[in-house]
């Protein structure tokens, strides 16, 4: 700590800041002393954020590679996949007469399942919310670290363990779980229903239970930190939208993941202890099951009670990041700050009472669906407000069209495209036809897959200097952006048409049905762009890791001229974030071009007659 250079801006914090006597306790910090405690079992939120991010990137590569493999089967069913046999072994079935190797259907379903599980939980929950909540909550609210750094560390390591177990399950001789990421029983409950429902499913449940622990440890920490550790002057209404988003996300996670866990436990009981929470009237593998009385639909309720908030757990952090990054690079306050906060809260609340819109066609009483249709389509209103506010934020700006901003624009475009198709699907009458077709695949991939990734990329490019003290390469960033937005639309836009033709999702082959086999060319097109998209992401990965060590150095503390507190910390990050006093906050986070000053940071005191809030 001794060699930290004190810059001019620090004087303000040092002199007017809030003295929490941090420095006195800081000497002899045992947690920063050696490599293992500094970089591996670290309790520092900045390191943990990077751990989440890099683990997320590794999982994203694995998950994306899986999608490339099953897209090749779907797009080019006639082509031989024998060349990946060295990797996939017996899961490539070679026809002895023709020599053409195909993906085994079991493994196709395993890949689809793993792709969903990995992307939803490991990448877009842990990798996105884990990274940025950890990085930004202490930074932006002016805290030294999380409320409980130890729990924060545990949160990462439970996630890591969950990953290890899931990774191990990929190599089982019976294959990983293959019953879809939603894991509906009885398919997931009965090993005799599918080869992946044996050990693969056991490990899947173990892994995700560990994951739930990770989310809860993280979430309770984020909430406590936001509520208790805000620096002096940082009222709730002065928090940047990122913090609002992470805060609501953590609440959603805390309330919904335990319900998922309870569903998992019942499933474990059904699998191992002979209960029948979800099983009844089953005749399978030549035998009648001796247990009756359960309902498979109960599981669906429990699952989607998490599952729906989960999509907001994924998208809210992306929304927060986009709101913040967009304001910084448009050099304008985010339009309608309060409306943005209220819509985050509204979306968060509504996300708990719409879960059954995933179940219109599952056999629940059609009368019940009426309520869920109404609540679901109400969500369109706060979502629309957000979109209009983002667009208006651009209006009259002085926009830097750099990579983070491009990804913000891409995010809004994706959110519009994917959000609008939600209006179709949320209407139960239309859902009769669209349910479980490629239309749904297109909808959720665009709105919570691609959009969330765009938010994540915007955040990574924007806060990379804050994480690593260097910039990512702009040219490669732009290549990455254009390659991604073009291929993402090329992949998912045509899927709307396939869905509107009635083609169901999760089909290993379309040739069995006359009605579904018309789209050979389109499926090739999609697969080609999926492969392109995959390689474009490698540009990002290379850029990311290269820039960690060799990127352009950050020379000033606040390279983007942003207003939030993370840009008042030293270039070389230190444990405790601020070397002396904590900054005191005097204004909201969006004072861009309010007066003659181009931007005013949150810790700058108000001038005579100036208002700090909006």
């Amino acid at each position, binding site marked *: 700590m001794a060699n930290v250079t004190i810059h001019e801006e620090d004087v303000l914090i040092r002199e007017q800041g809030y003295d929490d006597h941090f420095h006195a306790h800081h000497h002899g910090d045992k947690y920063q002393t050696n490599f293992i405690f500094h970089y591996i079992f670290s309790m520092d939120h900045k390191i943990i954020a990077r751990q989440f991010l890099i683990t997320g990137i590794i999982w994203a590569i694995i998950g994306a590679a899986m999608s490339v493999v099953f897209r090749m089967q779907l797009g080019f069913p006639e082509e031989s996949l024998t060349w990946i046999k060295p990797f996939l072994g017996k899961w490539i079935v070679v026809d002895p007469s023709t020599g053409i190797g195909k993906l085994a259907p079991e493994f196709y379903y395993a890949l689809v399942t793993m792709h969903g599980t990995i992307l939803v939980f490991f990448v877009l929950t842990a990798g996105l919310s884990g990274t940025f909540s950890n990085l930004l909550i202490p930074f932006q609210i002016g805290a030294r670290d999380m409320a409980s750094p130890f729990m924060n560390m545990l949160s990462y390591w439970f996630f890591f363990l969950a990953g290890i177990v899931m990774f191990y399950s990929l190599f089982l001789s019976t294959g990983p779980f293959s019953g879809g990421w939603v894991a509906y029983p009885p398919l997931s409950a009965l090993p005799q229903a599918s080869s992946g429902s044996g050990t693969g499913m056991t490990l899947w449940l173990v892994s995700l239970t560990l994951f739930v622990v990770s989310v809860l440890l993280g979430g309770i920490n984020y909430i406590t930190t936001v509520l208790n550790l805000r620096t002096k002057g940082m009222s709730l209404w002065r928090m940047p939208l990122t913090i609002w988003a992470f805060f609501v996300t953590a609440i959603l996670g805390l309330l919904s993941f335990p319900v998922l866990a309870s569903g998992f436990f019942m499933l474990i009981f059904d699998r191992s202890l002979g209960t029948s929470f979800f099983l009844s009237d089953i005749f399978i593998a030549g035998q009648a099951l001796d247990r009756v009385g359960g*309902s498979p639909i109960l599981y669906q309720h429990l699952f989607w009670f998490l599952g729906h908030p989960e999509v907001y757990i994924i998208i809210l952090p992306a929304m927060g990041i986009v709101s913040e990054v967009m304001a910084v690079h448009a050099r304008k306050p985010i339009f309608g700050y309060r409306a943005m906060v209220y819509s985050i809260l509204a979306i968060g609340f509504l996300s708990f009472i719409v879960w059954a819109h995933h179940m219109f066609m599952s056999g629940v009483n059609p009368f019940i669906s009426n309520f869920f249709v109404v609540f679901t389509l109400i969500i369109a209103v706060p979502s629309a407000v957000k979109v*209009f506010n983002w667009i208006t934020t651009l209006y009259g700006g002085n926009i830097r069209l750099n990579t983070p901003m491009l990804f913000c624009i891409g995010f809004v475009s994706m959110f519009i495209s994917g959000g609008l198709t939600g209006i179709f699907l949320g*209407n139960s009458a239309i859902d009769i036809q669209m349910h479980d077709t490629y239309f749904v695949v297109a909808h959720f991939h665009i709105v919570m897959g691609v959009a969330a990734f765009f938010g994540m990329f915007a955040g990574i490019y924007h806060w990379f200097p804050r994480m690593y003290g260097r910039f990512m390469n702009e040219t490669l960033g732009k290549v990455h952006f254009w390659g991604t937005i073009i291929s993402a639309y090329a992949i998912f836009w045509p899927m709307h048409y396939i869905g509107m033709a009635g083609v169901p999702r999760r089909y290993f082959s379309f040739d069995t049905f*006359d009605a579904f086999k018309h789209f050979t060319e389109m499926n090739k097109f999609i697969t080609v762009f999926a492969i392109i998209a995959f390689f474009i992401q490698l540009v990002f990965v290379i850029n990311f890791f290269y820039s960690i060590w060799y990127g352009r150095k950050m020379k000033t503390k606040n390279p983007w001229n942003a207003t939030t507190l993370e840009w008042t910390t030293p270039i070389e990050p230190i444990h405790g974030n601020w070397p002396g006093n904590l900054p005191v906050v005097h204004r909201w986070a969006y004072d861009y071009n309010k007066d003659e000053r181009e931007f005013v940071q949150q810790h700058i005191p108000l001038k005579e007659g100036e208002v700090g809030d909006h």
Partner: protein
Amino acid sequence: MTYLIAFAIIFLLSVIVIQIGKLTELAARIRGEEAVERSSTNTQGLALVAFMIVFLIGCIWSAYYYKNQMLGYGPLTSASAHGFELDSIFNITLFFTGIVFVLTHILLFWYAYKYRQTTGRKAIFFAHDTKLEMIWTVVPAIVMTYLVANGLIAWNNIFPTLTEEDQYLEIEATGYQFAWDIRYPGADGKLGNKDFRLIDPANNTLGIDWTDEHSVDDIVLGGTDKILIPKDSLVKVRITAKDVLHNFYLPHFRVKMDAVPGLPTSFIFTPVKTTQEFREQLRAYPEWQVPADPEDPTGPQKWETFEYELACAELCGKGHYSMRRVVEVVTREEFDTWLAGQKPFYATNIRNTDKDPYKGKRLFDYEIKTRSRELKSDISGFLTDTTGTASRNIQLKHVFFETGSDKLSDLSKHELENLNNLLKEYPSLKIELAGHTDNVGDAASNLDLSNKRASSVMAYLIGLGADASRLSSRGYGQDQPVETNETPEGREQNRRTELRIISK
């Protein structure tokens, strides 16, 4: 080796990517970072606008290009009554969302271009505007209300509560890994009960409960038989599953509903076009006027081979993608004829086996009718015989007595009623009722028993109103066996009641 090359290529590409990165940063340093940023901002702004134009045009063009393949547009209009309503709600939603999609995209990309960074300009300070925010809260709310109202009205119409008075055909679809079994009610119009515990993979795959009256005439379509449904009739599909979740999905009919083990679901719809009518509809479109099999240009055209299909739409395991059944819509008359020609599953597979709860306990109308036909053909065979080879002794195959007694078994009475009817039909016929036994016991008591049994039959016929003067009875004891008395089967054949035609 191939892998080595592949890795080498990937490595080289990575190096190229890194070098591009380095070069651009170097170039930026030489040209001055600000200048580079300015020109990059301009390029990106133009690129965004170009992207928007290409994207929007691409969306509209591709939608138009593919419209004939999508359900609801072009030839693939709904094949069910409620489907038209769904398609129209889809289009109303598409109309509103389409406007929003195009406008917001134009604004988004245009603003990004128009307000791109230029030196010397300042961004405006525009933090909020209550009026503007009210507008874009209220307008979407109104549009959403309209869409929700439309959707819910349709939704609740599609799931009506049927009462006894509604005329509908109820059929049952049962999904299992990886096919469908379809059950039709027989003449009684009602499906019988079933229970998964009764499932027998050999001859009761659905677990139908045969003790339920409604079961015995049910028709089961297994395998790959076409599922017939009548046009313009209300069809209620009872949807069940045997092992895991499935989904009964008829894309052309806009029908979809999960099949849940332990929880029967249903979907009610009215087919409005026969398969043939739908084919005619497709015929007008060039993409359907091509040979169905490209290898065989002279074969039937694509429209001629069109079939409605049933698919599974809920992941159910490795064969999920292959649960196809062909559905055929025919006119009500054709349907009724077809259904009447189907053999009940019970009659062909269960009747008189060990699984049959009615074995030896009751007869069904169709069986009584069959027996009546058989007896009549036996008698008329003798009456019309000109060759002199027909026997005047006709066995009453279904007349039985309780063991060692002359008391007629309950089921024998149907045969005697048939006989009585035949006596009315041939008024000049005179018959002798002859009783025979096997050789178990002593001959005298056998003779006595056969006598008693013959007269018991005669008494029953008289009781039914037969003219006693046309009847006589006689017991022959064990003297006239038709089979060997050494085996139980032979003895069973020998214990019999015959009628012997005395005069025509």
